[in-house]
């Protein structure tokens, strides 16, 4: 407080805000700085007043909840649950500006619809605001149907009306199919899902399902509500029957498949997915579901089960594991004997991870394995028909992360044919550089790939950003752009190799500069 007092002093005596200057800048956003400066320079003056809250400013706790708001109060109470008598710490509950009270109409929403005004509530306001009350006086009326409240023999239509009004009503007296269907049709016409559901619950209880299914076929809205109801109340079996009866086999298949989301045990989930394979999916989905099953099965093998494990001793180490069989990775990691798991402990188990994540994992932990093993990246790629590009990006990222630059190199050169050593990539080289850079590749590695970018402008801008001086320099040389080269000389370190190289070029009489 003392400090801010002093600052305030200074403020009052200084003649102008020093920090605050106005300049017409083109970039509108840069003006944010101005307002920020202004805010800063004004701050000290008003800081002092902060404790002394004014009545018309809402008090807000640091978390932003207005003090006294419902959610704030709940939190407060959670903290001081035991002491009931203690006055909860509500510093000051903001009061409403008095002018607002004018809008008290003395009428509530529900009374509008119940068709009665609470006259006793009027009293307190009527003196002062009798004018406004008249303006807001609603239509006091009753729906026609309400006059029949005391008659017990309601028609299907009247019954639906009563349901709409939330009144108790018995559906049991509608015995004939015709009456029941009338009931349903009126409910549908009223569009209230709640009422439609109520009628459907009754129909479900009182009709054979063959009959119900048949009648629902010609009543699409009711049908949809019924499906929704069965879904909500998790009556899976009946729902599947219904969809089958309707011939909506694809929906049925998807619905069944959806169940897997709630299965947590991986073995159960795998078995469940296997049972889904025979469901009537569309050809396209069928392939996806098959892949889903195959993937989980594969993950379980890689993660926990080792079909060839008997007779193999873990201490034989990395080499043995890599070459002989699939490692059960969970155990390999726990055993602590395999180096890579110590250097890069696994963040999570591979179970239930997406395919590409699994591929990345395999490229990371099982890269050199022969294609015959389940955990080999090549095997994963072939089994799931992963596109060349996807495979390439994933392998690149994984090997770069491990700083296995020779593997990275091999990804490109390994793809050539007839001994042709030019690097080829299914991915544009600037994306390659992007991936490498994100995995913090050193400049030496980066520049090899920056150099391969076709577009000269893109190449230069990336090379400058990544400080690949040689590339910048040779590109300017190729472009015969002397001026740019001179300009770039200022950006490299004095006395460095790149500077010498630039000087050599600038002194070279052979080059015909364009400028």
């Amino acid at each position, binding site marked *: 407080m003392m400090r801010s007092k002093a600052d305030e002093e200074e403020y009052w005596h200084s003649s102008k805000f020093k920090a605050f200057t106005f300049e017409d800048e083109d970039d509108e956003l840069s003006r944010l700085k101005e307002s920020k400066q202004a805010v800063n320079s004004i701050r000290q003056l008003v800081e002092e007043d902060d404790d002394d809250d004014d009545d018309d400013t809402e008090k807000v706790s640091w978390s932003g909840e207005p003090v006294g708001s419902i959610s704030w109060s*709940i939190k407060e109470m959670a903290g001081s649950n035991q002491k009931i008598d203690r006055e909860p710490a509500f510093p000051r509950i903001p009061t409403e500006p008095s002018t607002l009270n004018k*809008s008290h109409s003395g009428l509530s929403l529900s009374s509008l619809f119940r068709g009665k005004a609470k006259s006793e509530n009027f009293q307190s306001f009527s003196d002062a605001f009798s004018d406004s009350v008249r303006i807001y006086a609603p239509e006091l009326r009753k729906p026609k149907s309400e006059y029949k409240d005391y008659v017990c023999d309601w028609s299907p239509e009247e019954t639906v009306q009563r349901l709409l009004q939330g009144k108790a009503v018995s559906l049991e007296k509608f015995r004939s199919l015709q009456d029941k269907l009338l009931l349903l049709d009126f409910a549908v016409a009223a569009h209230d899902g709640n009422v439609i559901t109520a009628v459907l619950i009754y129909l479900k209880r009182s009709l054979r399902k063959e009959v119900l299914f048949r009648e629902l076929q010609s009543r699409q809205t009711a049908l949809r509500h019924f499906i929704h109801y069965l879904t909500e109340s998790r009556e899976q079996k009946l729902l599947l029957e219904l969809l089958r009866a309707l011939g909506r086999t694809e929906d049925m298949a998807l619905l069944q498949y959806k169940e897997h989301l709630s299965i947590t045990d991986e073995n159960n989930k795998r078995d469940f997915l296997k049972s889904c394979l025979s469901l009537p999916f569309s050809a396209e989905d069928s392939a996806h579901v098959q892949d889903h099953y195959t993937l989980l099965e594969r993950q379980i093998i890689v993660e926990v089960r080792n079909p060839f494990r008997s007779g193999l001793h873990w201490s034989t180490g990395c080499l043995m594991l890599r070459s002989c069989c699939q490692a059960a990775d969970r155990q390999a990691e726990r055993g602590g004997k395999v180096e890579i798991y110590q250097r890069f402990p696994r963040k999570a188990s591979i179970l239930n991870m997406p395919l590409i994540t699994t591929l990345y994992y395999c490229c990371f932990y099982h890269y050199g394995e022969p294609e015959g093993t389940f955990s080999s990246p090549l095997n994963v790629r072939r089994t799931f028909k992963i596109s060349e590009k996807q495979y390439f990006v994933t392998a690149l990222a994984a090997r770069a992360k491990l700083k296995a630059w020779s593997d990275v190199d091999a990804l490109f050169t390994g793809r050539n044919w007839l001994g042709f050593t030019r690097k080829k990539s299914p991915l544009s080289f600037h994306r390659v550089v992007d991936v490498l850079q994100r995995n913090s590749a050193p400049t030496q590695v980066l520049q090899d790939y920056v150099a391969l970018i076709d577009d000269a402008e893109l190449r230069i801008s990336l090379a400058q950003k990544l400080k690949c001086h040689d590339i910048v320099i040779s590109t300017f040389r190729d472009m015969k752009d002397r001026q740019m080269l001179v300009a770039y000389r200022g950006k490299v370190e004095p006395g460095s190799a790149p500077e010498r190289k630039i000087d050599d070029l600038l002194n070279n009489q052979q080059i015909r500069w364009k400028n």
Partner: protein
Amino acid sequence: MAAHLSYGKVNLNILREAARKDLREFLDKCAGSKAIVWDEYLTGPFGLIAQYSLLKEHEVEKMFTLKSGKLPNADVKNIIFFVRPRLELMDIIAKNVQSEDRLHSSRDFHILFVPRRSMLCEQRLKDQGVLGSFINMDEYILDLIPYDGDLLSMEYESAFRECYLENDQTSLYHTAKGLMTLQALYGTIPQIYGKGDCARHVANMMLRMKREFAGIQNQILPVFDTLLLLDRNVDLLTPLATQLTYEGLIDEIYGINNGYVKLPPEKFAQMKQGEASKDPPTEPKKLQLNSAEELYAEIRDKNFNAVGAALSKKAKIISAAFEERHNAKTVGEIKQFVSQLPHMQAARSSLANHTSIAELVKDITTSEAFFDSLTVEQEFMTGVDTDKVNTYIEDCIAQKDPLIKILRLVCMQSVCNNGLKQKVLDYYKREILQTYGYEHILTLHNLEKVGLLKPQTSSRNNYPTIRKTLKLWMEDANEQNPNDISYVYSGYAPLSIRLTQVLARPGWRSIEEVLKMLPGPHFEERQQLPSGLHKKRQQGENRTTLVFFLGGVTYAEISALRFLSQMEDSGMEYIIATTKLINGTTWIKTLMEGISWSPK
């Protein structure tokens, strides 16, 4: 507290007061001390209606969040559950009640369903054997919540999903009920226009409900001249695009929930200079955003590129105001200055907050990723290369960008191309499933069902025709001093708002062809007014239209409507109502399977 609700052309505070009145009445029905157990989701919407003080006046002594297990101790006579009618909540309530009975038998149980009672839920309570434990079951009809001076929201998050995916029209019923309430308070709306199947349903229900009250006329002079009902699926494109207004961007980046936003605290830490020794706060900073804040009301609807200038202008004004102290010579003048201090202080802190927020937003909007993604969006909206696999989307998938971002872009491409070529669609699907997991088959199916993603059926792509006729793309959108609604998306004029604009002038008859290309019927209905209630319009008096977005509306669309209201020659004021305020992300989330999308 809610003064900002009464600033607008229509005093929405009347609605709020009516809702508060209803709440008091319910509380008084349960005589004696009480504790409320809240469905946490409801505390947000209720916060727009009432504060704890109101509840306390009516003997609410304790409040808890609904949780499984035993209810906390509280020496009260009544326990009231405030819940949405959802089955999973009924199960929790049943557990609460069951574990209670053995220990305490003197407490009475009540349930208040918001916004409606549900047979399904009561059935569930009955199945669980606890229905008899409740003394009282009631409903609190909170259909339309006043959200701001010109904005009403039902805060009904699942409305779009229910209507278009599950074909459950319950939310439409609530909409119609809400509109009836509104008419009871603000007079019968003489003219109803609509576009879309849901709009048609709502209008039908309204007309039918009105017939039920036949015989008794509403004697209130109508405040609204026109109601326009718009289905969200008439314009699937707009929510997919990144909003570029200030408020829209805050929502896109941080998410505005029930009028509040949570922000990373770092930029606000300096605010507490007085307590410099304290550790910087780690809890997010929560701010309320509405037009009660003068500065926010001024800048919320601006294109973000114009916000810097506006803040700087405001800074000058505030600085100048503080400068005034030098001119204050006499005691009277100083007194005058001091009396203005609280206001200036509020303005100062508001400026500080928004400068910080603008900085946060700017960090995002100036990033390369934001720019790239926006470029692709704009290409799609202008119809560039929408028929082939987009390399940017491909790259984003390869980088494992958030799935929702991918879905937004792919859906946008599909909408702008009137469906994707089967080959392209299959390619995207495959890449998505391989990268994000096969379980998303379900989500992709949902997106297809609601029409956001689809294979091209006819070879004719009608999007370019729609774009040209409705002028959905404006080449030189003026972000600083806009002259057209397209400024809210820096070039793209939201389709929904163009429809609204054309309806006001020159009328929908001029765009019959385009209306036929968009899904669902378009219609006009008239509601008879008792003679004597026909408005005698003053010369130059604006007409008022209530635009109701069924299935959600974005902040940028609201900004566009506010812009139209403010145009000098528009002659129209717009009030906006919706089932829920949405953006592309929150919207797509409600359509996904296997993730929980209701905010906890």
